[in-house]
């Protein structure tokens, strides 16, 4: 009797401790604190970087704001999350009706785009708001942890992040000293212009992690308020990176017109043929843990070519 009682109370006591690692969580996010149910099954992601986090944790969302273009969720993600999710519309103005009809138990929204509808979203389901659009790479990793916490997978998220950091550390080790002292710059170009990503942006901070330096660091008296700076050829010649990485949204892109011009040819990167084209969607729109690994692989390839030319 006594033995059974003791075991029983020990078991209860033990179970009382469990909620702190598996049960309903109070998640702190950009707009406050939300009570999220344990292990939400029906998740809706309203930005690509959240899809990245879900894929990293192996969770399939029921709805994604994909701008009604399913191909924007790349193969690396659909391999994990499958193809059953429903489109809830554009990231700018997702359809609240479709979101409600999916009966979610967790909604992950972007701070810049969706702060205004936070209250309405909260009526449908517990909502957490994170800064995807404006966030840097370290913040993207943080957000993966927060999402993991919300999913009731705190431990798994920590493990996955640790795995990711190990992978990145290995890639960085492979990069080694090659990137030190090299000025690298990433930019996106469509048919009408070029936008360089400042060191405050996701890609800027990622390149910094790889050991590159940037000549776009705000000089005295100048402030880079925006992450994506429209840049003319003259301004590019002032930045003059050793390594220029371009994501092209259009073909032919705006920067292609510059080929053959004296100023363009005199750029360090152009002279040494160190202008590389990467997939603009993967580099610029996705912004997450898996995306960083894809980016790192691209950087490794680029650096191999770069070093070969030194």
């Amino acid at each position: 009797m006594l033995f059974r009682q003791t075991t029983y109370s020990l078991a209860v006591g033990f179970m009382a401790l469990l909620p702190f690692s598996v049960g309903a969580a109070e998640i702190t996010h950009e707009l406050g604190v939300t009570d999220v149910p344990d292990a939400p099954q029906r998740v809706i992601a309203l930005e690509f970087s959240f899809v990245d986090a879900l894929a990293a944790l192996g969770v399939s969302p029921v709805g994604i704001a994909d701008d009604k273009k399913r191909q924007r969720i790349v193969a690396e993600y659909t391999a994990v999350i499958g193809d059953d999710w429903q489109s809830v519309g554009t990231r700018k103005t997702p359809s609240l009706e479709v979101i409600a009809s999916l009966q979610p138990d967790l909604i992950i929204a972007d701070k810049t785009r969706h702060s205004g509808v936070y209250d309405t979203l909260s009526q449908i389901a517990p909502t957490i708001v994170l800064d995807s659009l404006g966030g840097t790479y370290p913040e993207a990793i943080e957000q993966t942890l927060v999402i993991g916490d919300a999913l009731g997978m705190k431990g798994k998220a920590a493990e996955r992040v640790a795995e990711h950091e190990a992978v990145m550390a290995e890639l960085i080790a492979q990069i080694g000293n090659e990137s030190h002292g090299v000025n690298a710059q990433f930019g996106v170009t469509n048919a009408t212009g070029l936008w360089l990503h400042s060191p405050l942006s996701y890609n800027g901070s990622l390149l910094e992690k790889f050991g590159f330096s940037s000549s776009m660091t705000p000089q005295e008296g100048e402030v880079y308020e925006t992450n994506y700076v429209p840049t003319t050829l003259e301004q590019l010649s002032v930045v003059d990176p050793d390594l220029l990485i371009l994501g092209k949204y259009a073909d032919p892109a705006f920067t292609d017109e510059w080929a053959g011009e004296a100023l363009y040819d005199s750029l360090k990167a152009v002279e040494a043929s160190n202008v590389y084209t990467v997939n603009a969607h993967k580099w610029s729109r996705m912004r997450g843990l898996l995306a960083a690994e894809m980016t790192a692989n691209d950087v490794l390839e680029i650096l191999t070519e770069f070093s070969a030319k030194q």
Partner: protein
Amino acid sequence: MNARHRLPLQAGAIAVLAFGVLILSVYGSLMTGGRSDIRLSDLFTASTNGAVILDIRLPRTLVAACLGVNLGLSGLILQALTRNPLSSPSILGINQGAALGLTIGVIFPSVGALVGLMPLAAIGALAAGFITFSIAGVFAGRIVSLRLILGGVAVGAFASAMVRFSFTLEDDLARQVLRWTLGNISDVRWHHVQSLFVWSIGGTVATLAMAHRLNLMALGEAQASGLGADPRLTLMIGALMSACLTGTAVFVAGPIAFAGLVVPHMCRFCLGPDHRILVPATALGGACLLMAADAASKWLTSPVELPVGVVVAMIGAPYFLYQTLFSKGAI
């Protein structure tokens, strides 16, 4: 009578002033830009800096000048045709119509490829002008000033709304179209100059040839026909010219508001109503205004460049407000 006696001295002073302003504007436009280490003397060396001036800055300055000529002349013609000193391509919705034509060509590439983007801009300008003129009763012979302006604003607002609709489309397309809502000439090259230059020179010559007709328009319908210049013909030719001038300007840079208002207005204020003098003066004045605005756009918020349309609007909008508050005669 006094004016006549003073004319040579006044004319001389104005000519010197104009020349000075022209030199300053050209210098300002050429010497500002992303790089701060470019000197005028570099033009004569074969260095990269020299290439910067030749390949990048000179075309940009020329484009600015041509834009100013086109828009100024377009405004001058419109003011003469409608006998309203406040007419201009942007107030009558013609600028926005051109932008809409261009946007349609971008969003529906098949249409754009078939007709060509520049003709589409001119067609858009013409259509918008046609609607505004109809609303104002121009084709029925009596121009009602208030209807003209209000109709123009409504047409312009409609065209802008349609252009802004494309912002709700995907981000890339949206960013492309955004460039066409604010006059923007960053990164123009020589091939942008070619067609625009032809229109500027041709436009000035053609408008000068029309100067007599435009003078007669100011007298009113009856007098004009009585003096042998069919006002309907003047109207058609003038409207066509204005649409083409505006269309080409918008095609290269996007709609730049107020350039077609400020320049003819000021020239008329300084030099009187004779179009034979006004046409070259407006052309020159427009060129100076846009080049000065170009210089300001590169220098004001350096290292970030302002779109040149924003700078012109910052000059033109207060000017327009001032005119409506303190001058009589428009309505």
